[in-house]
């Protein structure tokens, strides 16, 4: 018996491995897969009055002859999970989830509410949490179908745009889907995502979309979104200009540091936002001898502080009156100080709280020379 011992052991092992592999789906090779690259979310009015979810998914097929074919297939159904079945009945390849890099949520579903979308992504362990998330104008299908020369899929172009957005307009790095979970899910925070538009010149970021809990509250143009980003997040970078008359102006590229203090009198909250700008003048036609005279530099810094403060207050008033959403995430500061889960609706508390802004501008370098 001893002689056969390891022979029998090998047989048992083989049977065990075969049992493990039996009944499993066959492993597909890559040519037979449709690799998901970008997912769009939009909503369609249904004939019976209800609404239908429309999910265009841009996927790439790597064919043997090296040509990568990018296809967009759309599934329309009454719930997001059912759209998978609807889409599969049009596709002849196995759908592969896990490598998508972009989630385009359009205005329609934004206004309708994004909880369902986020829940489907949050729950699925195979989803790529590092994919970018953007809000788009019109239907998300157009963005996925838009052909850009030199790119297999428009998704690469848009993700590239979002990835190097932080260098201008004080955009942040946290527009990935995992940050969206945190922004929508946590108390006192609010969701703000880049807003892209497709026009004849191509796809561009034309502002920010801010949300009140899970519904789209407002779309800000590029100026407003710049001030909101300054007030909302820390360590943003961007360009600020003072326009004298039409010919002379000065533009100042700066990094902004934000500190917020909050205290509460009775049930009214008072916030003090300190903004420190530190950057250098990029071109200056307005202030003569800025680099040599200290007073001219200080004068410019004063003017710039006044200008930024004015813009901030104007935005805060607009926020309180029109948008009625805590898009500066001040609720988060209050919560950190006065305790969590108190059942307070931070959007309207912030809307009628008192917010003060102190701005400090410092110029470091003035470039090589002056004309």
């Amino acid at each position, binding site marked *: 018996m001893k002689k056969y011992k390891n022979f029998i052991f090998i047989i048992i092992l083989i049977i065990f491995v075969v049992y493990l592999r039996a009944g499993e789906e066959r492993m597909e090779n890559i040519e037979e897969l449709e690799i998901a690259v970008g997912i769009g979310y939009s909503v369609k009015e249904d004939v019976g009055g209800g609404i239908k979810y429309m999910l265009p998914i841009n996927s790439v097929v790597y064919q043997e002859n090296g040509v990568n074919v990018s296809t967009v297939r759309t599934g329309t159904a009454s719930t*997001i999970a059912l759209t998978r079945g609807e889409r*599969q009945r049009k596709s002849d390849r196995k759908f592969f989830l896990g490598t998508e890099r972009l989630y385009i949520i359009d205005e329609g579903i934004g206004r309708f509410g994004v909880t369902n979308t986020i829940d489907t992504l949050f729950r699925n*362990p195979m989803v790529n949490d590092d994919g970018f998330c953007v809000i788009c104008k019109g239907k998300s299908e157009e963005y996925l179908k838009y052909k850009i020369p030199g790119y297999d899929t428009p998704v690469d172009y848009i993700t590239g745009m979002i990835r190097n957005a932080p260098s201008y307009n004080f955009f942040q790095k946290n527009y990935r889907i995992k940050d969206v979970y945190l922004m929508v899910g946590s108390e006192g925070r609010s969701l703000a995502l880049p807003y892209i538009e497709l026009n004849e010149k191509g796809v561009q970021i034309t502002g920010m979309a801010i949300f009140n809990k899970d519904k789209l509250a407002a779309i800000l143009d590029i100026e407003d979104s710049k001030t909101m980003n300054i007030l909302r997040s820390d360590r943003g970078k961007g360009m600020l200009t003072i326009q004298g008359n039409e010919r002379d102006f000065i533009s100042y590229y700066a990094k902004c540091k934000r500190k917020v203090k909050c205290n509460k009198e009775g049930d009214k909250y008072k916030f003090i936002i300190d903004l420190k700008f530190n950057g250098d003048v990029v071109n200056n036609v307005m202030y003569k001898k800025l680099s040599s005279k200290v007073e001219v530099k200080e004068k410019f810094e004063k003017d710039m502080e006044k200008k930024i403060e004015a813009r901030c207050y104007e935005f805060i008033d607009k926020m309180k009156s029109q948008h009625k959403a805590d898009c500066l995430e001040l609720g988060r500061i209050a919560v950190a100080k006065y305790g969590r889960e108190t059942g307070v609706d931070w959007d309207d508390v912030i809307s009628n709280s008192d917010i003060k802004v102190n701005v400090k501008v410092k110029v470091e370098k003035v470039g090589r020379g002056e004309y």
Partner: protein
Amino acid sequence: MNKKKYFIIIAVVIIYTIISLGTEKISLEDLGIITGIGYDMKKVSPTEKKYIFPFSVYDFETSGKRSSHISVGEGRNVGETIETRQKQMNKTILQGLERTFVIGEVFAENGLKPILDERARNYQTSDMAFGAICKGKSEEILGMNIEGYGSSSEFIAGLIERQQGYNFFSQNYKVIDMLVRIDAEGRNLVMPYIDVQEGKIEIVGLAIFKKDKMIATTDLYTAKILNLLREDNVKGVLSYQKKPKEYTDIYVTSKRKVKCEKKQDKYTFTIDLKLTGNIASNTLYKDILTNLKDKEEYEKLMSKKVQDNCNEFLNKMKNEYKTDCLELGREAAAKYGRRKGIDWNEIVCNSEIKVNVKVIVNEQGRGDFIK
């Protein structure tokens, strides 16, 4: 010893020359490889029918790009049609590599008997080709050229094969399944029903057969329920929706067991469906992540909903289709003896069919965003 070696070498050479004497090799270019076979029929007059059998053949250009063309044979009976089709071919035909066969609606309604015999007898054809019933004429569908594919039959084969993961489709739509199901006692054939919508070939439902004649086609919703009741170990998404924004979906794998009782030639069938799966998205239950009662309530509601859908389908089957498209006859035949000349379609449609559905939620992915 070397005398024998020489003898063997000489013998081999002689035998090889004898064998290869009568054969001539054909180069790939002038070899017509069939990729897809179509069957159509035109009713010239109520009595006189005309068969139209197109098939798509690969042309291998020297450039290596694969393309295919359609050649059509027409005739009053199967033999003649095949013969006319043969005449038009300038190349020698290679059967056996075809991937799909598409049957026109009119031909299917008239009965598959003529082509069944040809498929079974012709030993060169491949039994693993996927079949489908197409709306209108199969000539158009086979003739369509789809970007990125040699011939449309490649696309259709992939389309039918890849439905496995969704809408409870199985893989039993091949030639061998057709052969096995049509003449067997108590069994009926069901084939995918494809159509061209917006220039793309899609699966739009199922075609139900009685013996070898197609009696009805269903839309996708009914097809899902029919598949669920008919197939075993199939996957799909089920959804329980109260409001457009509040629904809970579950991606299930089904297990089907049928029991059959006979009380003095009155049959009762009970179909037990055990649907186990994971929650795909949930915005209905706030606390399903941790609360067992919520989960059990959802399981009960889901089971009841699926049961109602099944019963609704059963009524439709009994009154509208009047055929046993769930292969219940086969269970009865297996239990109470075969070859008794019973028409199972009629028996099943008058018998009492009970459906017990049990939905079991196994896991919920990574978390639940609504909690």
